[in-house]
């Protein structure tokens, strides 16, 4: 094939077709060669500087199953540095929050914004399961976004509730009251909840059976109002508004609560209404909140719409 080369000195490979079509032996373009060598150099340099080759892949990363590179860079370190930066940015706020009361935080709009954003995550982790992702409540769990409070909606009361939890109590009346009395009281609460005045007989029974001891003289859940405006309650529901502590509310629901009470040990069908305590000042207990987190949560819950 290449016995006779009709194009001597042309740098062809000696492969010819149809007399004059032939394969030349030209080098690749210079830019291409430069790119090739540059990529090779980059590959070697990168391999030297950064973790790259699995030398003993059966070993874990911690035991050095790969080349570590001269720079000693690792993605987890970069992540940790990033987290440190975030903490540093937050520190200026966190330090101030640590020294301030919840009231003082609320007085500072910038700090309030920071606290709300930060507390939203805590709320999602610890509170949303029962009280709803937006504090809108759920059947059996109180709404936090309205101004109807069982124990009070001041920052101090909210903090107290989160720290120590709440466990309301109402006596089961199934063995105390007659069927007719339970029926009359249940009707009475429905009358009040529907905005009515309540019948005279209803009020008489309400007073006579000692409901006032917890629900108050006016059946609004308030036992006393101190001169400084503080409201004293034992967590009994306000019966004069249309909000039911135990949905769906109404006659059957009220009757059930009167019969079986709330959180009564040994009583079957009693209402289960317990809020766990989240306070853990020492920060030693798992699943608990430190005082800063509780402070933030108090500001958050207070800002949901019903803070007093």
């Amino acid at each position, binding site marked *: 094939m290449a016995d006779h080369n009709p194009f001597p000195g042309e740098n062809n490979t000696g492969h010819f077709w149809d007399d004059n079509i032939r394969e030349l032996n030209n080098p690749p373009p210079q830019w291409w060669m430069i790119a090739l060598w540059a990529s090779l150099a980059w590959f070697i340099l990168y391999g030297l500087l950064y973790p790259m080759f699995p030398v003993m892949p059966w070993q874990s990363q911690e035991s050095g199953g790969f080349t570590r590179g001269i720079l000693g860079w690792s993605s987890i370190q970069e992540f940790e540095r990033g987290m440190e930066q975030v903490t540093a940015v937050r520190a200026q706020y966190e330090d101030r929050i640590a020294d301030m009361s919840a009231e003082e935080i609320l007085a500072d709009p910038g700090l309030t914004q920071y606290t709300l954003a930060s507390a939203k995550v805590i709320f999602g982790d610890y509170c*949303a*399961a029962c009280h709803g992702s*937006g504090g809108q409540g*759920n*059947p059996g769990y109180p709404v936090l976004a309205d101004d109807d409070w069982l124990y009070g909606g001041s920052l101090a009361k909210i903090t107290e509730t989160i720290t120590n939890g709440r466990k309301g109590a109402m006596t089961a009346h199934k063995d105390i009251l007659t069927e007719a009395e339970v029926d009359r009281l249940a009707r009475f609460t429905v009358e009040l909840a529907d905005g009515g005045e309540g019948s005279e007989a209803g009020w008489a029974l309400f007073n006579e059976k000692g409901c006032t001891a917890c629900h108050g003289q006016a059946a609004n859940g308030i036992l006393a109002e101190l001169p400084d405006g503080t409201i004293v309650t034992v967590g009994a529901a306000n019966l004069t508004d249309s909000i039911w502590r135990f*949905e*769906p509310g109404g006659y059957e629901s009220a*009757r059930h609560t009167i019969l079986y009470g709330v959180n009564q040990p040994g009583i079957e069908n009693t209402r289960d209404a317990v809020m766990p305590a989240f306070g853990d000042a020492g920060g030693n207990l798992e699943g608990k909140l430190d005082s800063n987190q509780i402070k933030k949560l108090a500001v958050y819950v207070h800002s949901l719409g019903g803070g007093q």
Partner: protein
Amino acid sequence: MSNVTTGPLAAGLRSMLDVSARETNSAWGNPWVMGWIGLILVVLAVNATMIVLAFVTNPGLVNEDYYERGRNIERTLTTRRAEAPGWTMSLDTPADVAKERATTVRFHVVDAVGQPVRPERVTYYAYRPSDPSADFSQPMVEEAPGRYAVKVRFALAGLWDTLVAAETDGQEVIFDQRIGVASR
């Protein structure tokens, strides 16, 4: 190999390429005719593909007895109302739900007097109205009496019809909620 050059196909090809063939008044030799036929074939092929796709990807959402169901709608609704256990239910989907982000959805259920209900099985269904291939369902896990949770991940942004089915004694109670999933 002789039929390659003498077969009917070769004859057709030759007549198409051969300028003299046009003088014999054979329409096959006209590139316009071939072009038009090609165009028609393309349109038919696209139609055929679409029809096949329509059959293959049919979600089958139509009920077999849709006509009878339509006629019986009143009775169905009345029956459902009569059999409804009078539960109060709520489905809590966080407002910041976004696509490709794990979100915990919770379902609460209490009976007619407000006591927690513990159904045998609670299942969460998510329906994508426009694309049944994105539909999914997951069992919900009981966190507390009457409180069920599931961690879900929506593959697409936009409207979703979510539905919780609580099953007790063979009776299924359904609660639905239409939600909007953000793109990020």
